[in-house]
C-alpha cells in the first residue's frame, strides 16, 4: 500500500489570510454544530471524536486532506452525530434533500 507523503506541506498555502468561510454552506454547517452543542445535544469531546472519524474515513477514501476539504468532513460528522442522537434520521435527511432539490429546480427553472 502506498502511504501518502505526510512529511511535506508542499502545495498548501501557508500564508493564507482568506475568508473564514469560503462558501455559505460551510458557515451554515459550522453554526449548526455550535448551536446543537450549545443546546446540550452532544459534548464537544463527542463532536471532536466524530470529526476525527470523518477525517479518517475521507483519508481512507483517498482524500489527501490538505485542509481544503475540511468542511466536507465537518458536514459528514454533523450528519453522523444527528443520526446518533436521533435528532434526524438518515432517511428523513435523504427525503428532505430531494425535496429541497425539487423546490430549487421549480423556483429557478431547473426541472428535470
Amino acid at each position, binding site marked *: 500500500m502506498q502511504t501518502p507523503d505526510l512529511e511535506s*506541506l508542499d502545495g498548501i498555502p501557508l500564508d493564507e489570510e482568506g475568508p473564514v468561510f469560503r462558501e455559505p454552506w460551510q458557515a451554515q454547517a459550522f453554526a*449548526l454544530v455550535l448551536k446543537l452543542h450549545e443546546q446540550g445535544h452532544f*459534548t464537544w469531546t463527542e463532536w471532536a*471524536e466524530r470529526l476525527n472519524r470523518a*477525517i479518517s474515513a475521507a483519508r481512507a477514501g483517498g482524500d489527501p486532506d490538505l485542509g481544503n476539504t475540511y468542511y466536507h468532513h465537518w458536514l459528514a460528522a454533523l450528519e453522523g452525530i444527528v443520526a446518533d442522537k436521533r435528532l434526524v434520521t438518515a432517511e428523513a435527511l435523504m427525503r428532505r434533500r430531494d425535496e429541497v432539490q425539487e423546490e430549487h429546480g421549480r423556483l429557478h427553472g431547473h426541472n428535470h
Partner: protein
Amino acid sequence: MTESSHRAPLSDVQLRVRALESLLTEKGVVNRETLDGIVDHYENKVGPHIGAAIVARAWMDPEFKARLLEDASTTLADQGYTGIEGSHMVVVENTDAVHNLTVCTLCSCYPWPVLGLPPNWYKSTPYRAKAVRDPRGLLREFGLELPEETAVRVWDSNAEIRYLVLPKRPEGTENMSEAELQEIVTRDSMVGTGQATLEQ
C-alpha cells in the same frame, strides 16, 4: 462570501446542509437568526487581533503575564474571552530555551475565542502529522530556523484543552506602546509557526 448564482443547480453539500437546517428548524431545534448570529461572531468579531491584544498586554504587564501563564482560562474569562465550546485554555511562553508549537492531531481544536477559526493548513493532515514527527522541519517550511540550543515543544490540543503561544518579545521594542506591540503579534506567532518580529 458570495452565494453562488441562483440559476445554478445546488451542489451536493449545499443540498445536504439545507436539508439539515430545514429539518432541525421544523423541529424547533434551531432557527435562522441564531445561526446567523453565530456565523457573524466568527466571521466578524473573533480573530487574531484578540490574541495580539492579550500578548501585548502580557509583554507590558508582568503581573498580568504571571496570571495568564498560571491560569489562562480564568484570566481570559475575566477579560470576557470564553470559549463557546467551553474548553480550558493554556498559555505557553516562548523563551530563548524553548519554542512552543501547537497542533491538534485529533481534528482541528484551536483557541477560537482568542484566534478565531484556524487557517486551512492547521486543519490539514500533513501539518498535523509533521508537527509531531518533525517539528523542526515543519518550522523550516514556515521559514523559521531556530538555533540548535532552542528546544521545540509540541502541544497537542484537544476538545478540553486549547493552547496559545506567548511569543518572545522582539528586541528593539522597549519603547513601543501596547498598541504598537499588538501590530507585530501575528497569528502564526501565537500558533508557534512564526515569531513576532519587527520586520514584517
